C-alpha cells in the first residue's frame, strides 16, 4: 500500500511542482530554478528507491494503483510498474534533475513558463509509461505534445515556429488515427466479452480480445503509424531533424532522452502484443524499415555539417536497433532492445548536453568551425569522448550491452529462420551489424574533427570559451556513471525486466484470431453494427 503511494508520488510530484511554481513570482529566477531542481531530485530519488524495491520474481504489475475514473465507460485510473516500464521510468526520473540543471544558464527568458513546461512534460512522460489503461495512456500520450510545442516554439532557434508546428502536426496525425483505433478496439472488446459485459480499457483485458486478421491489420496500421512517427522509423523521421536543430538544449535532451522512447515503448506495450497476427504479417516490413533506419541514419550522419543534426541522425540509427530487437521475438533480443532504449536515452541526452554546452560558449553548430578542443577544453573533451565511445557501443558502456544483445538476438532468430529456408532476417541482421561499423566510422570521424586537429573555436582567442564549470561536471559525471553502470553491471536490470520480456515474447507469439467455431467473430461489420 505504502509502496503504491510512492509510485503515485513519483507521478504527481512534477504536477505538484508545476502548481508550486505558480506561487513563485516570475522574476525570481533563482528560486524557480532551485524549486525545480529539488522537486526533480526528490522524484529521481523516489524512482531509484522504487527500482531497488522492484521484485524481479514477481510477474505483472508492482506498486499498482487502480481507481475507477469514468465508470460509465469502464475507464480506471490504473498505473503500475512492470519490467517493461521499470527502466524507462527510472531513466525519466534520473534525467529530470539533469534536464533542469542543464538548462540553468541557457534559459533566461520566461523562466517560470519554461520550468512549468518541463514539469508538465515530465508528468506526461512518467504517466505514459505508468499507464495500464488505454484511455489514460492516450491522455498522457497526447499531453506530451503541448509542452514540447511550447518549448521548441518559445525557446528555440531561428526556424522554431516551422519546426514546432511540423513536430506537432506530424505527431498529431498519427495520434488522431490511433484515437479512432482506440475507440474501435474498446468497442470490439466489449462486443467480444458478450452482451451485458462492462467495457474495459485495461491493457490486461485488451490483450485477450480475439480479432480477425482484417481488424488486426487496420488497428495495427493505426497504432503502428502513430508509434512509428514517434520513434521515428525511416521514412517517417523527417520531423525530427528540424525539431532537434531548432529546440533548445533542454528540449533536445528531453526529446532524445525520453520522448523518442515513447514510440518503441508503444510498440512493446501495445502495438505488438495487442495485434500479434498483424505483427507477424508486418514483421518483414518492420525489419526492413528498422535496418533502413540503422543504415540510412548512419549514412546521413556521416554527411552532416550541423552537430545537432549529426546526433539526430545517429539517434535514428540507434533506435533502429530497438525495433530490430523487438521484432526478433528472441528473449535476448527483446531484453537488448529494452537496454538499448535506456542506453540511447542516456547517451543521446549526454551528447545533446555537451553540444549545448559548447553552443552556449561559441554560438554556432557548424562542425567546420571547431577543432582541437582536446587541448583547449580537456575536461569537456574527456566527457565528450566517453559519450562518443558509449554511442559507438564500446564494451563496458551501456551502448555495447544494448546493441550487442540486440544483434545477438536478431542473429539467433534469423539463423533459425535461415535453416528453415527464409534468409530475409539473416540478411537484415547482417546489414544491421554493418551499422555498428558505420556508427564507429561517423562518430570517430566527428570526434576527430571536433576534438583534435588545429585548435579553433569561435571566441577561443577572446577567452569566451572556458572549460566545464562544476555544475556541468556534476551533470556529465552522473550521466557517465549511469552509462558505465548499465555497461558493467547489466545483469541486475536485466533480471528485473526478464519476466516482462518473456511475457511480451509469449503474447506476440500467440495468435489471437477468433476461434473458427465462434459464431460471431468480431469483424469490422459485426462489431460496428452491434448495439452497445
Amino acid at each position, binding site marked *: 500500500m505504502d509502496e503504491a503511494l510512492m509510485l503515485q508520488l513519483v507521478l504527481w510530484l512534477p504536477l505538484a511542482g508545476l502548481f508550486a511554481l505558480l506561487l513563485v513570482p516570475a522574476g525570481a529566477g533563482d528560486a524557480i530554478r532551485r524549486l525545480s531542481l529539488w522537486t526533480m531530485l526528490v522524484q529521481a530519488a523516489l524512482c531509484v528507491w522504487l527500482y531497488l524495491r522492484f521484485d524481479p520474481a514477481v510477474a505483472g504489475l508492482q506498486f499498482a494503483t487502480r481507481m475507477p*475514473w469514468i465508470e460509465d465507460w469502464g475507464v480506471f485510473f490504473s498505473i503500475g510498474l512492470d519490467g517493461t516500464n521499470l527502466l524507462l521510468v527510472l531513466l525519466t526520473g534520473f534525467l529530470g534533475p539533469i534536464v533542469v540543471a542543464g538548462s540553468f544558464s541557457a534559459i533566461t527568458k520566461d523562466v517560470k513558463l519554461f520550468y512549468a513546461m518541463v514539469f508538465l512534460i515530465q508528468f506526461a512522460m512518467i504517466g505514459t509509461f505508468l499507464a495500464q489503461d488505454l484511455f489514460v495512456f492516450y*491522455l498522457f500520450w497526447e499531453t506530451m505534445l503541448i509542452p514540447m*510545442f*511550447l518549448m521548441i516554439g518559445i525557446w528555440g532557434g531561428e526556424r522554431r515556429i516551422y519546426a514546432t508546428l511540423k513536430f506537432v*502536426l506530424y505527431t498529431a496525425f498519427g495520434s*488522431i*488515427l490511433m484515437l479512432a483505433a482506440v*475507440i474501435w478496439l474498446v*468497442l470490439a472488446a466489449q462486443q467480444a466479452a458478450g452482451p451485458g459485459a462492462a467495457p474495459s480499457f485495461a491493457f490486461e483485458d485488451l490483450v485477450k480480445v480475439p480479432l480477425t486478421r482484417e481488424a488486426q491489420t487496420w488497428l495495427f496500421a493505426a497504432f503502428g503509424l502513430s508509434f512509428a512517427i514517434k520513434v521515428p522509423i525511416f521514412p517517417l523521421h523527417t520531423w525530427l531533424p528540424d525539431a532537434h536543430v531548432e529546440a533548445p538544449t533542454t528540449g533536445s535532451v528531453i526529446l532524445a532522452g525520453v520522448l523518442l522512447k515513447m514510440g518503441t515503448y508503444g510498440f512493446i506495450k501495445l502495438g505488438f502484443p495487442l495485434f500479434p497476427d498483424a505483427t507477424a504479417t508486418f514483421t518483414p516490413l518492420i525489419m526492413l524499415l528498422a535496418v533502413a533506419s540503422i543504415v540510412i541514419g548512419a549514412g546521413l550522419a556521416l554527411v552532416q555539417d550541423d552537430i545537432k543534426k549529426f546526433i539526430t541522425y545517429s539517434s535514428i540509427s540507434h533506435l533502429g536497433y530497438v525495433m530490430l530487437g523487438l521484432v526478433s521475438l528472441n528473449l535476448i533480443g527483446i531484453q537488448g532492445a529494452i537496454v538499448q532504449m535506456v542506453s540511447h536515452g542516456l547517451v543521446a541526452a549526454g551528447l545533446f548536453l555537451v553540444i549545448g554546452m559548447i553552443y552556449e560558449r561559441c554560438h554556432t553548430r557548424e562542425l567546420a568551425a571547431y577543432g582541437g578542443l582536446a587541448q583547449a577544453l580537456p575536461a569537456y573533451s574527456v566527457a565528450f569522448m566517453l559519450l562518443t565511445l558509449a554511442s559507438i557501443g564500446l564494451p563496458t558502456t551501456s551502448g555495447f550491452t544494448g546493441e550487442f544483445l540486440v544483434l545477438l538476438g536478431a542473429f539467433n532468430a534469423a539463423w533459425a529462420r535461415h535453416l528453415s529456408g527464409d534468409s530475409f532476417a539473416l540478411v537484415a541482421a547482417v546489414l544491421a551489424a554493418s551499422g555498428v561499423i558505420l556508427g564507429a566510422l561517423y562518430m570517430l570521424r566527428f570526434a576527430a574533427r571536433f576534438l583534435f586537429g588545429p585548435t579553433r573555436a569561435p571566441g577561443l582567442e577572446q577567452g569566451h570559451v572556458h572549460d566545464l564549470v562544476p555544475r556541468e561536471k556534476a551533470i556529465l559525471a552522473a550521466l557517465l556513471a549511469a552509462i558505465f553502470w548499465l555497461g558493467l553491471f547489466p545483469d541486475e536490470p536485466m533480471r528485473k525486466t526478464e519476466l516482462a520480456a518473456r511475457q511480451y515474447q509469449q503474447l506476440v507469439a500467440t495468435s489471437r484470431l477468433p476461434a473458427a467455431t465462434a459464431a460471431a467473430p468480431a469483424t469490422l461489420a459485426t462489431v460496428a453494427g452491434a448495439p452497445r
Partner: protein
Amino acid sequence: MNRDAFLVGMLPEHFLLAGVVLLIVLSIAAPAGRERGAAALSIAVVAAAAVCAAGLGLQGFAGQPFPGQLSVSPAASLGKAVALALALPVLVRAREEQGDGGPFYPLLLSSLYGLVLMLGSDSFLTLFLGLELMSLPVYTLVLLGTRRTPRAAEAALKYVVLGGAATATLLMGVSLLYGHGGTLAIGAFARALASADPMAVTGAVLVLLAFFVKGALVPFHTWAPDAYEGATVPVTGYMAAVIKAGVLLAALRLVGEAALSQPLVQLLVALPLLSIVWGNLAAMRQPNLRRLMAYSSIAHAGYLFLAFLGAGPGRFQAVLFYLLAYGVMTLLAFAALPAHADEPQRDRIEGPAGLTGLFHRQPFAAIMIGLAMLSLAGIPPLPGFVAKFLVFREVMAAGHTAVAVAGLVGSYLGIYFYLRVIQRMFMTATEVPVQGEAPARGAAVVASVVCLVPAIALVVAPGWVLARI
C-alpha cells in the same frame, strides 16, 4: 394548469421572468446615464435559475405545468441548467463592456427566457414561441455593437434575414408535419423521422434544416462569421456558447431517442462532416479571434450534430457533455480577452496589437486563451478531448466507423489554427508597448475563473459528471 409543476418545476422560468421585469423597472426608475445594479441583478437571477434547474434535474423532477404545451423533465432541466450556467461568464464580463444598465441585460434575460421555454416545450407552438423569443433579442444585441464597430449593422441585418429564413423553413416544416399527423405535439417529429411518407420526411427535414441554420452548419453558416465579428465580445460569447447550446438541445428534444431513417442518416452524416472540414479549413485564414471562433463554432456544430447518429440515451449524454465542454472553453477565450480602446484591434491575430505577444504583456489572459484553444482543438487532458472522445465513441458504436474516422481526420485539420493563436500569443514578441490595451481587470479574472472551475471538474472527474447526465 398543474399547480405544483407550475410553481416548482418552472422556477427557472419564474426567476428569469421576474428578472426581466425588475430590470425594465430599474432602467425606467434610474436616472438616465446613471444606471447601476443591472449586472449584479442579472447575475443573481440567472445563477438562481441555473441552480434551480440543476436541482430539478438532479432530483429527477418531472411534471406538466401546461399539459400538452410545456413539461418539465430531468433531461430538459439539466439542459436548461447548462445553458443558464454558460450565460454567467457572459454576464460577469458584460459590465465593463455594456455598462451597468441599459438594454443589454433585459434583452439577454429575455433571450434566456425564450431558450428555457423552448427546452421545455411539448408542442411546436411553444417551441416556436421559445425559439423566436430566444432569437429576436439577439438580433438587437448584435446591433448594440454598432457603437464600436460600424459593421455591426450589416452583421445584424444578415443575421436577421437568415434567421427569418430559418423561421420560415421551420414553419413550413411544421405545417407539413401537421398536415401529415394532424397534431402539433413535438412527438410528431420523432414519428416522422422513422416514417417513409414523403410529406412527413420533408417536414422533418425542413424542421432540421431550420435548426442547422440556427446552429450554423455548413452550408447555412454564412451569417455566423459576420455576426460574431460585428457583435461585442460578450454577445459573441453568448451566441457561440449559449445560443448554440439552446439550438442543439432543442433539436435533441425533437429527435429524442428516435431511430433515424436512411435519408436522415445521410443528411446527418454529410452536412456535419462538411461543416467540420470547411469550418476547420476556413478558420485557418481568419484575421481576428471572433471570426476564428465563428468558424470554430461551425466546426463544433458539426461534431455536435454528428452525435445525433448515436443511439438511445447516449445521444443526449454526448451532446450535453460536449456543449458543456465546448461552451465553457469558448467562453473562457472571450472572458480572458483583454479590453482595448480600439475595438477591432482587440482580438487581431496578426499585427502589433491584439493577440500578438499577449503572453509577454498579460500572461494570465494568454494562458487562459491558450487553454481554451487547446481544449477546442481536442487535445488532452483538457475537457474538449473527453467530449470529442464521447461523440466519436457514440458515432462508432452506432456502426458509422468510416464517418467517425472522417470526422476525426477533419478535427485534425483544426489543430493548426488553434495552435496558430497560441503561437501568436506565446512565440511572437511585441517590440512596442501596445497603446490602449487595458490590463486584465477583476471582471476578466472572475469570468475566467467561472469558466475554469467547471472545466477543471470536467478534467478531474468526467466520470462523475457523466454519471449525472
